[in-house]
Each structure stands twice: as C-alpha cells, then as structure tokens.
C-alpha cells in the first residue's frame, strides 16, 4: 500500500519535536494498555486507544468495513498484541512509523502448503540507518512481522514467496525470496513525504498539513556534502534562502537572508536550536550534529516566534538518541588553494606606465621611474600575490554516540575542526560538544535537556579596508621590494629606501600577515532543560528553559613596523572581554481534540527572555620586548582602559494558536501574539500581531481520486504581521552621552568629558512586517516529481533605522526613528525528481527564487542619504532611494571614453558649451542625464544594486551499488559589485603598483580602450566620481560541490557501515566579474575591497557507523 493513497488522516498534530524524535516504531508498539470494549465500531476503538497511549492512527475509512463492531478485553497488554487481536479478524493489518500507525487492508489470504524457510534481514533507510517498525510480509499472505529496534527481522516464510517491505515515507519494496536467507534491504524514500513530520514553531505537523512557506533540509540532502558551517547546509537547498559567503575568510560567517533584505534595520533570520532561541553565531553550531532544519519563510509560519521572526526563522533540530546503541566516527581532511589571482604590473611595466602618466599630466617624471636615475626600480623581485597565499589545510573529526531504551535516550557528540586559510597565517578552529537526552520520569511526564558547548577561535588579516587590506597591499606593493631585507639580517623588508615616497603608504603585506597575533576564543554554552507533562489525554504542558552564555576573551598584539614605507614605532596589546548572557523561559499548553471529522489543536503560551551584555577593553602600549612570551599587560608601560559598557533588554510575549482541519482537506491556522519589549516605552511598548493561514488539500477531495497524473496537490495561502526590532539598540529612548578624551593643560593631560552625539527618541514604536504568501505543493508522476511554488509579498513599515541627521544637526550618531517602508516581492520554485531503477537511484533538485527589493517610502530628510563603506576619497557609493533597492549604487553614467581630444571638445550642450571642459581623449564621457546642459551631481543615477535578481541551485544525487555521487551548482544572477581593486589599481595617481590591465589603458594608439588614459592628474574627475565603470555584473554560477563516495557492504564489516569519499568545492566558476572572486556577499554593501577570496577545496573523508 502506498502512502500516497492514504486519504483520510486522523492523526492530529504532533506536539513536541523532541518527543517525536525520541520515539521509534518499536517503542510505540511496546506501549502497554488496558482496554475493555463491547460491540463498538472499530474507528471509535482506535480513537480510545489514541487517548490511552501515544499513537496516531491513519486509515482510509473505506477500508474499515462499517457495521462490524468489535469486542475486546485486554489488561496491560502491548499495543502490538492488541492491534493483532483487533485488526486480524477484520482483514486488516498495519505499518508503523514513529508514532503513526497506518491501518490498511491485509492482502488476501491464500492457504498454500509450501516448504517454509527461516529468513533474517535488516531494513535500512536510504542513508543506511536501520528502520525499526517496518512491516515485512510475504505477498498475498498474512505471514509477516515488523522489524525491531535495530531494523532487523526474523520470519518463517514459504520459499516461493515474494517478500514485501513497507514503511511510512518509503516506497514499497518487493523481492523474490528464492534461496536467499539473509536480506539487507535499503528502502527508497517516497518523495511525496506526505507523512513527514515537519518541525514548526512549538511543535511539529505532518507535511500534508503545512500551510505556510516552510522548507526543510533533511539529512538526505546533507549526507554526501561537506560543510564548513551550519549556514552552508542551507546553501542552495531551500528556495528563497540566500546564503552567501562573505569571501573565504576562515573566520567569516556566511550571510543568511530569507526572502531578501526586509529593512534598513538589520533584519536577520532567527535561529531556533531545539526549540530555543539561539543567541550564538550560526558558525558555532557543528553541522554534523544537525538532524534537520526547517525554514519558516512567511509571516504566518514565523509569527509564532513573533518579535524577532520577521527575517524568517531557521529551526535547527539536533540529533537525538535512539533505542539501540550506535557509534559514529567521521574524519575529513583536505587542502584548499586560491582560485583566481589578480595580476599586477612588473617593475619595468610599472615604471613605464608611471612615466606615461606623469607625461600625460604634464608634471615632472618621478625619479624612481627614471631608468637613468634608478635602474634598480625596474627589477622585479617579488610577486606579492603569490607570496601572501598558501595552501590551506582542513581537518575535521566528529565522534558521536547515541542510545537508549523506551524510557530514556541520549545523544553525545564531540567535534573538532581546524581550517588553515589560504592567506598566510589565517586560520580558525572549532571545538564542539553536545549532550542531548530525554527521560520519561513516570507516565505522562518527560524530562529532557540539550546541552551544547562550542569554542571557536580564529585569526585573520584585514581584507575589508580600502586603505590597509592585505590583498590590496599585495597588488599595489612595489615588485622591486623584497619580503626580507637583502642584507641577510632576516628582518622584513620595506619599500626600496631610494625614492621611498614613490611607492605610496603601504606596508609589506607578507610581514603584515606573518606578524598577526590575535586570539578570539568565543565560547557558547547553551543549557536547555525542559519538561513535558501530559496530565489528560490530548493535553500537553511544556516548560522550556534556556541559559545561553557567550563569552569572548580576545587578545591582539601589534608589533612595531619599522620598515621603510610606513613606520609605526609603537607596539600595543588589546585585551577584550565580552560576555553575553541570555535567559529564556517558555511555558506552553497544548490541547488537541478530534470531534468526528473536525480536528483541533489549541496552543497558549508565554515566553520571557532577558539578555545582558557586559564588555571591557584594555590597551597596553610601550612594551620593551615583543617576544611572544612577554605579550602580557604586566609588561606594558602604559595601560589605558579604553572602554567598558553593558546593556540589558527584555522581550516578553503571550502567544495563542489554533489549528483546525476538516477531514484533512480544509486546513486553517490562526495565531495571535502580543509582544512587549524593554527597548520601547509605553504606550508603544506592547503590540499585538495576528496571522492566519488556509490550506486546501485538493488531492484528498473525492473528486480528485481519479486523477492519476497528479498524486498530490495542495493550495495554501497566508497573511500575517510580525514586529521587528532588528538591530535597535537597548535604550533608543535614552541614548548615553559619548565619553570623550582630550588634551588640556600646559603639560597636556587626558581630560575626560561627556557630549551628546546621538539623539534619543521616546516615541519609537515597533516596526511591522506584513507578509502575504500563496503557495502550491504538488506531486506528479506517482510522486516521482514533487515541487512547490510560492509567491510572496513582504512589506516592512514604520521601518526602524538610525537616521543620519544633516551635518548641521550636530549629532553625528543620528537618531533612531520609524520612517519608511521597504517591499520585497518574489517567488520561489523548488522541484525534485527522484527515481530508482534497479540498483540505480537518483534524484535531482532545482531551486530558483526571485526577490525584488524596493524602498517604497522613506522620510524626506533621508532620501538622499549615502550609505555603505567609504572607499578612499570617493564619495560613498551606496544610497537608499525611493523606488530602488536598499543600498543601490549611485553615481554617474558614462558613455565610455572619448576616443580623441576632438571628440571630447565636440561634446557640447544645446548652447554649444562644452559639457566637460577639461576632458581630453581617453577621459570618461559622463552623461548629462538630467539634460540641464551641465554635468554635476544632479546627473547621478542608480547604477545597480548588490542584490541578486535571481538565485538558483541545482543539486543531483546518484547512487549505484554502494557508490554515491553528488553534484551541486549554485548561481546568483543580476547582482552588481563595486570593484574597488579597479579604482586603486588603474589610477596611477595613487602612486601604487597597478593592475596588469592598466597596460590596456587608452592611448593615442589604443583609442578603443575601456580603461581611461593614465594620468597623474584627474581634471575630468575620472577617479573621483562614482561611475558605472566600477560597477560590474557580479553574476556567477559555481560548482559548489562534487562528491564521490563508496559505502562498503555492511556484511564485510560485521554490520558496520563504512563510507569513504572524496569531495571538491568551488572547483569552477562561470562569471564575468573581473575581481578575484564574485562571492563577495552583501556584508560590505557589495563593495569588493580586495576581499578574502573563496578557495578551491579538495577533501577526502571517511565515515564509520556501528
């Protein structure tokens, strides 16, 4: 019997994620009950059993013949015996998965007398996990059993029979018994996954009852890839979720955005770890501990988490213990290399090009580049790009154990990961430990806890500053310089001493990296005990508590830099302590009841969270010795307390939810939430947010039963509102004065003071995010092709942001205000095709999503406020402008270069006046976009934005005789990048070495060039205006992962499962972007300041389970 054919599902919403995961089919069947029924209809009896034990029955009403009443009297019997007595006479049998028991018609009995043989076997999931509770029967007979906790079975069968194995969520498996006596059967998942339990807020629902835009990432998708961070689990697996690396820095976290960027007020997804708001960084979570992830994208789904859920919710469930004991060990090791390097000019080329630039500007040649005066400057000695990179090494080891019995279970895991980056002296390390367990103290009372600890540490160089970035410096540092002094002293070398000023104010990038001495140990401890009490049938009380402690003890030592170039004749030690404590308590009460065809679940809850932060930072300087062993404050001659601060905030909420469904066809869910925050003052402190969702399981309608092409069809729609506080500071209504230090006096002394630099706002209110979603879930071709499609609109209004005040307000830190709205519109489509033919199984998943971000309104005085990073002396390139995406690039449009002086002179306005009086051949031709006859700031227009128009991914898995292959492509389309390497690398005026591309600059012999003429002067503002020359298409498609694995037959290893694999990441990229790496992310507003590039990774791994 196929799961898809089960029409009427009576099973009510499963309430507890933790509980659901703690239960196996075998546990369910072992539950004991006492029951006395006399002449009652079978459905009613089943309902009574549901109330007595923790089980859900599903069946097609047509299978339960009406009128056939049953009489039964059992005392403290196991459920499986009860079911046998109950169902066999009615010609029914059952299969079990978790707490769900599916009742169906037993195959017709055929009394045949054949020779019986004893067979044994193991039933495994797709990933090789044993499947307890799978039904194993001989086709056409009543001979059958279910597998035990280890997924094994024993059965006496006729030798000519056909073995049929069924398990909820999997395709039915059939095999001729023949002479075979030992079976190892790997089941293939039934992709309609109708019975999948989906983790949603404060509970779980079956997939068929999901009403919102909820996506899940199961272990299946995760198994064969290799993950650096938990964020990468979401990369390309969920449509509408964008995970972008902020470059390849081993210490960086990826940006996760669900359905775009909703607000100028930092709106990030809320991470819920095992039901608790997780305050740590997502890279503190070991991806190997994760059982599955649900992503709640629309407001109606996320609303249950209210206050902080407007950026979407990521629900992470970690692994839990099973009823038998398992050990899993895995190890990975690999190397990584830089993908693409940028080419700089060699010394001779640089000298030549600089001379051209000085000649063009009509200024005297620089002596350093005069071959007669400084021949040495023409000798290329060092390729700095080669020297700053190294081969990175990654090691990863994870060990986990789990086990338990019907009452208790545990899961313990530990992991260590080390990632030596591709830039010299950069690395990261992560240690993680987790203990999850749960225990049934006495009937109806379950206690459990999740405890995790992770320690993360790393060191990285600066690659985000347009002044001091290490990669920038490597590009622009003179190639006639050497890493070490040529005198053999072993000291680092600087720029050549002769004509030192000709080389700009950069420091030796290799020295900079090798001198790095930072430690940033960040520990995150999460203790989450909970208790679940079921005092009455259908009623569940859950009390959930969590303490999160995040602690950073950072140390950074900067040595003196005495090489020629830029001298820093001091050393300093920073010590920083930053403690964050969060306390959370949640009390929820759930009641579920089924009356006839009507099923209700009602939830009421209360949550309270208090966050406290405390930090201090001390600086010591004037160390006599810089040896690493003396880098302690005790050796500093001067110690300054730089900063010490703290803050505290509280969020409190009341929440109510009603889920209702009629015959599983018509579904309704409504949520009302009342949120209060300490960050606002009354009367704006409390806000109520409603949401509602509706669903229609069309494929379960009687009229749909004859449609065979479509196996599953569900239409859903939702509307909801959620509050957003985003990055609102703790006390926007009472902003602290800035603490200042000044020199006053004859012998000037530190003189401290206080001044108001930011304004308070007592009238702030909640920012509201209102979202609508319409979605369609479908299964075609007997469920081999499944997909879902969502269209959404999300509008954030009363947007909270720190308004930048006009300069003459005198408050540079601005003021938090509610002002403006942002609309995100888009769609998401996910398609999966899955098939198995003989021993070949394969599945292909494609996701595509589009999000359009647009500022709908913004308060008048912020209309033209520039944002984003400052790149050297350029005006900021990003702007928030109504009708455009947040942080759009804003500047001048060019029509290429003037090909000649004549062409430049001929560029005139209507009155015949030159539009660019100073322009000559090889200068940019700026467009007079407002047609006022003058080129000025009013001609600036939006030139693009850093957000992708489309994101897409393609994931394919193939399995054949123990081999598995994964291919994963990810692409983003239509985003723009501001390429600063071109600004500094093509303009000789900075006095740095230039990009090799500079050779293609405009010259009288190369008038078709796209790079402006080389000149030490910039009369035409080629380099002081943000223009479309710097804005590049950042689209790319990248092979994020390719993995080939092989799993040894368990028989060879006494039942243990051993998989070995090799994997490659980022092996090739298709892009037109001219910078090092297009994956610059949106953390830096799409401005590439020579960012740490994503590396190519080659790894091998081994995984052993027994």
């Amino acid at each position, binding site marked *: 019997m196929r799961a898809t054919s089960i029409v009427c599902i009576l099973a009510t919403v499963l309430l507890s994620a933790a509980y659901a995961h703690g239960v196996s089919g075998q546990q369910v069947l072992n539950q004991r009950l006492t029951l006395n029924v006399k002449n009652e209809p079978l459905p009613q009896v089943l309902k009574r059993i549901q109330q007595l034990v923790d089980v859900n029955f599903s069946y097609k009403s047509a299978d339960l013949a009406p009128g056939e009443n049953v009489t039964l009297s059992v005392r403290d019997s196991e459920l499986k015996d009860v079911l046998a007595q109950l169902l066999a006479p009615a010609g029914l049998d059952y299969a079990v998965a978790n707490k769900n028991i599916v009742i169906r018609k037993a195959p017709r009995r055929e009394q045949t007398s054949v020779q019986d043989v004893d067979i044994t076997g193991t039933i495994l999931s797709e990933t090789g996990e044993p499947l307890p509770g799978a039904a194993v029967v001989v086709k056409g007979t009543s001979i059958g059993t279910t597998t035990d906790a280890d997924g094994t079975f024993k059965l006496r069968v006729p030798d000519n029979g056909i073995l049929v194995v069924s398990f909820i969520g999997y395709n039915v498996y059939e095999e001729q018994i023949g002479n075979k006596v030992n079976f190892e059967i790997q089941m293939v998942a039934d992709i309609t996954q109708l019975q999948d339990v989906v983790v949603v807020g404060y509970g779980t629902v079956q997939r068929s009852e999901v009403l919102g835009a909820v996506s899940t990432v199961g272990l299946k998708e995760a198994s064969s890839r290799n993950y650096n961070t938990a964020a990468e689990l979401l990369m390309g697996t969920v449509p509408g979720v964008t995970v972008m690396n902020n470059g390849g820095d081993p210490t960086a976290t990826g940006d996760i955005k669900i359905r775009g960027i909703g607000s100028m007020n930092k709106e990030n997804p809320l991470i819920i770890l095992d039901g608790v708001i997780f305050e740590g960084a997502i890279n503190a979570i070991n991806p190997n501990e994760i059982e599955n992830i649900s992503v709640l994208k629309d407001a109606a789904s996320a609303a249950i988490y209210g206050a902080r859920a407007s950026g979407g919710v990521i629900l992470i469930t970690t692994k839990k213990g099973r009823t038998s004991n398992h050990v899993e060990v895995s190890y990975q090791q690999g190397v990584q290399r830089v993908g693409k390097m940028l080419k700089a000019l060699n010394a001779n080329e640089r000298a030549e090009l600089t001379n051209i630039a000085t000649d063009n500007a009509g200024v005297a040649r620089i002596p350093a580049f005069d071959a007669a005066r400084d021949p040495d400057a023409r000798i290329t000695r060092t390729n700095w790009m080669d020297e700053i990179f190294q081969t990175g090494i990654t090691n990863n080891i994870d060990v986990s154990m789990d086990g338990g019995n019907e009452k208790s279970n545990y899961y313990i895991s530990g992991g260590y990961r080390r990632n030596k980056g591709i830039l010299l002296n950069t690395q990261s390390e992560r240690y993680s430990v987790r203990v999850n367990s749960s225990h049934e103290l006495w009937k109806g009372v379950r206690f459990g806890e999740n405890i995790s600890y992770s320690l993360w540490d790393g060191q990285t160089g600066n690659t985000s500053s347009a002044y001091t970035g290490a990669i920038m410096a490597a590009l622009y540092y003179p190639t006639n310089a050497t890493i070490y002094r040529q005198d053999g002293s072993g000291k680092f070398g600087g720029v050549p001493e002769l004509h030192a000023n000709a080389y700009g104010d950069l420091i030796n990038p290799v020295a900079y990296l090798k001198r790095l001495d930072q430690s940033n140990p960040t520990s995150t401890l999460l203790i989450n005990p909970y208790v679940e009490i079921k005092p009455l049938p259908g009623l569940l009380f859950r*009390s959930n508590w969590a303490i999160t402690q995040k602690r950073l003890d950072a140390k950074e030592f900067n040595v003196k830099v005495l090489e020629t170039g830029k001298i820093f004749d001091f050393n300093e030690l920073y010590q920083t302590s930053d403690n964050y404590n969060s306390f959370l308590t949640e009390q929820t009460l759930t009641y579920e009841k089924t009356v006839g065809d009507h099923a209700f679940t009602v939830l009421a809850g209360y949550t309270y969270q208090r966050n406290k932060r405390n930090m201090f930072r001390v600086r010591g300087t004037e160390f006599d010795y810089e040896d690493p062993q003396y880098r302690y404050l005790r050796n500093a001659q001067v110690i300054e307390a730089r900063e010490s601060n703290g803050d505290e905030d509280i969020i409190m909420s009341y929440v109510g939810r009603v889920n209702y469904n009629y015959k599983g066809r018509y579904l309704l869910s409504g949520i009302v939430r009342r949120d209060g925050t300490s960050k606002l003052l009354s009367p704006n402190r409390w806000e109520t947010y409603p949401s509602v969702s509706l669903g229609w399981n069309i494929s379960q309608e009687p009229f749909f039963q004859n449609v065979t092409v479509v196996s599953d069809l569900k239409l859903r729609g939702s509307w909801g509102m959620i509050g957003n506080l985003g990055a609102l500071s703790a006390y926007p209504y009472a902003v602290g004065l800035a603490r200042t230090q000044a020199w006053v006096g004859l012998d000037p002394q530190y003189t401290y003071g206080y001044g108001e630099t930011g304004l308070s706002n007592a009238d702030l209110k909640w920012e509201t995010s209102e979202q609508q979603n319409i979605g369609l879930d479908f299964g075609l071709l007997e469920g081999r092709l499944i997909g879902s499609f969502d269209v959404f609109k999300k509008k954030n209004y009363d947007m909270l942001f720190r308004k930048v005040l006009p300069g003459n307000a*005198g408050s540079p830190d601005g003021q938090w205000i509610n002002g403006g709205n942002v609309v995100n519109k888009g769609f998401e489509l996910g398609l999966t095709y899955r098939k198995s033919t003989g021993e070949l199984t394969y599945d292909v998943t494609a996701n595509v999503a589009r999000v359009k971000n647009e500022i709908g309104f913004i308060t008048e005085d912020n209309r033209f406020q520039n944002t984003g990073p400052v790149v050297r002396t350029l005006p900021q390139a990003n702007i928030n402008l109504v009708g455009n995406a947040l942080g759009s690039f804003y500047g001048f449009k060019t029509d290429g270069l003037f090909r000649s002086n004549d062409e430049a002179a001929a560029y005139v306005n209507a009155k015949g006046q030159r539009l660019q009086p100073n322009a000559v051949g090889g200068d940019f031709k700026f467009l007079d976009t407002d047609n006022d006859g003058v080129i000025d700031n009013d001609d600036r227009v939006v030139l693009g934005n850093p957000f992708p128009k489309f994101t897409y991914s393609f994931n394919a898995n193939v399995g054949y005789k123990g081999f598995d292959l994964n291919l994963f492509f990810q692409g983003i389309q239509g985003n723009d990048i501001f390429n600063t390497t071109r600004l500094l690398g093509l303009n000789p005026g900075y006095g740095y070495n230039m990009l090799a591309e500079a050779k293609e600059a405009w010259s009288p012999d190369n008038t078709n060039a796209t790079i402006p003429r080389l000149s030490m002067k910039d009369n035409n503002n080629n380099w002081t205006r943000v223009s479309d020359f710097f804005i590049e298409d950042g689209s790319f498609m990248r092979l994020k992962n390719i993995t080939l694995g092989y799993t040894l037959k368990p028989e060879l290893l006494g039942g243990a499962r051993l998989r070995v694999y090799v994997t490659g990441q980022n092996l090739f990229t298709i892009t037109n972007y001219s910078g090092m790496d297009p994956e610059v992310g949106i953390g830096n507003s799409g401005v590439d300041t020579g960012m740490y590039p994503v590396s190519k990774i080659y790894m091998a791994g081994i995984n052993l389970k027994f």
Partner: protein
Amino acid sequence: MKKIILATMVGAMLTATSCNDMLDVVPQGSPTADDYWRSEKNAVTAINSIYADFSNDDMYGRGFFWLSNGSDDIGTKPRAFSENVKAFKITGNESEIKGVWGVHYKVMKQCNDILRNVPNIEMDEALRNRVLGEAHFHHAVMHLELAYHYGDNRAGIPIMDRKDPKNFYVKRTNSVQENYAFIAEDLKKAAELLPYFEAYKGGDYGRPHKTAAWSYLARTYLYAGDWANAELYAGMVIDSKKHSLVPDFAELFTIKNNFSSEYIWSVTSSAKNTTMGSIFPGVLLEDKGWNQYNGWGVFYPTQDLYNEFEANDTRREATILKTGDKFMYFGVEATFNEGAYTVSSSNRTGLQFRKFMEPFGYPKVYGSIDSRYVNTNGDKPSTALNVPLVRYADVLLMMAEAKLKQGKNADAEINLVRQRAKLAPKSGATLDDLKHERRCELAGEWTDRHFDLVRWGDAKAKYAKPLYHAYAKDKDGAIQVIYAGRDFNPAIHHVWPIPPDEIAVSQGTLWQNEGW
C-alpha cells in the same frame, strides 16, 4: 498525581505572567542627556568634550587646510582632489572636505547643550561663568570658520537653534552678516564671562580667555568689513597688555613656547597617546620623513612665498627650508635636500615648511621615537607642538589692517612685527605693506592666506600668475611651472561649495552657492 501536575502547571503559567513591569530596565552605560545636567562636575565634563575634537583630523589636522591650498603660498602633493582645489573645481562632496561641515556643527551643538543646561545647575558662579564663556567662545570660533568658508552676502550658513536641539532644519541666513553678528554677540558674552589667561592654572591652559575672545571679535569684524569694531577689539587686546611678541621668531614655534606671551589661541596637542593630538606638523613633514618617520608631505611652501620675504627677514629661514639649509632631525644635523635628506618627488615645490618641525628634531631614545615630542603612530603623526590659531602678531596685524582701512596710520603695529623680524621700520605703511607683512608673518598657519586674498580682493590677480618650483627646470631649461595661472572668479570662488550630500538631506534649508 494528575492534580498535582495540573496545579504545578497552572501555577507556573500564572507566576510567569503576573509581572508586567518586568519590562522596565535601567539604561546601562554612560549618563543620558536627561539625567546628566546635575552638578558642577557635569558642567565641566560637558565643556571638556569640546576639546576632544581638537584631535579630530577634520578639525585642525587637515580639514579646512585642504582649502587653504587654494592660495599662492602652498603647493600640494599631487593628488586629484588637491589639484581640483587649486583649480577651484571641487564638488564639496570629496571625503577630505565633506566631514568638516559636520564636525564644526557638532561642536556648536554641544556648546548649545551647555548654554541651555548649565545655567540651571546649582554651582559656583565663577566656574559657571567660565564654562558658559567657553561655550560661547567655541561656538563662535566654529561658527566663524564655517561662515566665511561658505557664506556671503547672498546667503550665510544656518544658525543652530540654541533652544531646541531637535530643530535641525534651519535655513541658511539671508546674509553671512547675520552670522557675523551672531558670532560677535557670542564672543562679547564670552569675553565678559571668561577670565584673563593669567587667571588659569597650568592644568587649564588651553581654555579660552578674555583676550582670545576679543581677538576673534577683531577677526570676525575684519571678515564682516566692520573696521571700527575690528580696531576696537584688537585694540582691547593690545591695551590689556597681557601679551607681547616673543623676541626670537624661530623660538616661537617650539614646544616650550606653546603658551608663550604671544599665545592667544591654539590647538593644544600632545604626542603621548597614539590616537590623539593634531597631526598638522606630520602632515607638513617630508613625505616618508626621509625613511625615519611617516611624514605625510601634503603641503609645501611655494617659491612665490619664499620670494615675498625681504632678504634679511629672519622669519624666512625660520619659516621655510630650502636646499642646503641645516636643521635638526631626530637628533642629527641634516642638510635639506642633500644626501640622505633629498626631498621626495611628491614635494611639489622643492621647499618645506620649517615652522612646525621642532618636535622632529629630538633624538630617538634607545632607537625609538621619543613619544614626549612625536607620536609613534605613523597613522597619527601628531606632536607635542601646539598649532597656533591666533597669536599676538596676528592681532597686531589685524589692528593694522582695520586702521589702514579707515585711513589711519598703522606704523606702530606693523613696525612691532617688523622689529621682531629684524627688519627696518616703515613709516607711513600702506595696505600693501600690511599685506606683505601678514603674508610673511603668518605663512603656513591657520590664518588663511586664501581668505586674506579674497577679503582684500586680490585673489583674481594673484592667482592668474603661475607658481614655480624652487629649482627644477623643465625640458627647455626654464624653471618649472608647478601651477599654471588659475582662473579665479570672485563672483563664485570667494566661497566654497557646501557638501552636496548635506544639501540633499536638508529638506530645502540649504542650497548651493551660486556657480558651484
């Protein structure tokens, strides 16, 4: 059992939901504006915060000096922005100059906070007067610096609402004269409230005093074209007899003379902290500091300036280093532009300002830069030398200018200055003599040669002449032109453009100066 569980459950729900004032938290961190103005101490710490911006590079590090670069005294390291300043072709949005506007208003805002709140604090009257006087003074100085850079008779700059700090959208005044009038009022109040410099103890040196307020009054009236009042207040400074010229001009620009008899107002600086102090001396120092210090080498004196000095003017060698001149550099006698001390190619003019080089003369200690004199941080090349903003010689010359403009004789003032320079006195000195004296006396200081020329109406003629390198020859063997004659339009270029980004967010209260 069930009852117990149920009761516990209900109890837990109730206790959890009963406290509604649980959302009240006490803001942590520094005091807030509402809670701050309570005591004498707060009045002092509030005024102290004003001085923090003396270390701000946008204030007296480079800031408005970028625009002084428009004058004929200075050649600037070749960079696009400074070339555009020289050619009067900036937009005002360049990052070098954009922030200067906001920093000045920030100080004015904090002054207004003090003027609004300190009168209500219960405190010592004398101290209150000093604090209020300081606030009036600083507000006026910031206001004046902005006013003449951006305002003219067509429109001044917005005067902040002193009563309501949240009223940001204040229109440009109808004329900069309104600003000058407001500034004068502030300075008069400051002069009334502040003590003479001599009343301060060493720890308070660097706070404004009576004669500083009068001096700024003279400067304000000079810009306003009110010669009588300029004369009045410059005269009050002189008549107070609190100041005198330091006998040796070269000695004036030394750390030990930070608060000499000639001091009236300056940027108090120190090198003791790697992140504070005025970087101006480091900005003027040779690019890369002959590989010993991170000099920035931004502004250089022109040959034109050098030529202005009379041959026996002792100020010339104290002001400008030329090839072959000896000077102390980190404890060693160096010869400018020779051997290891050859100037870099970014030295635009072949000369170097010497006025602010004293701190770089001290020897290193155990091979390290001595942080008593020079900042060890190459990114913050500040020194222990205060950067003068108004000194007594300037007051004398302002007096002279005011007198000459009214047709009065100013020989006394001009000759005091000449005498110190070891020059022969003049009799019947003319305005041209005054202009000559002012240029030589104050070269390379923040007294703003460019706006002197604008005020005198000389900018167009002066700037039309090319500026030459000290010695470099072009390929024809002639002395190299570093800046060709420039086209200064007095109807436009007498003010600078307001940063367009400020105009964009001003809700129409700001508009651009005509022609920019």
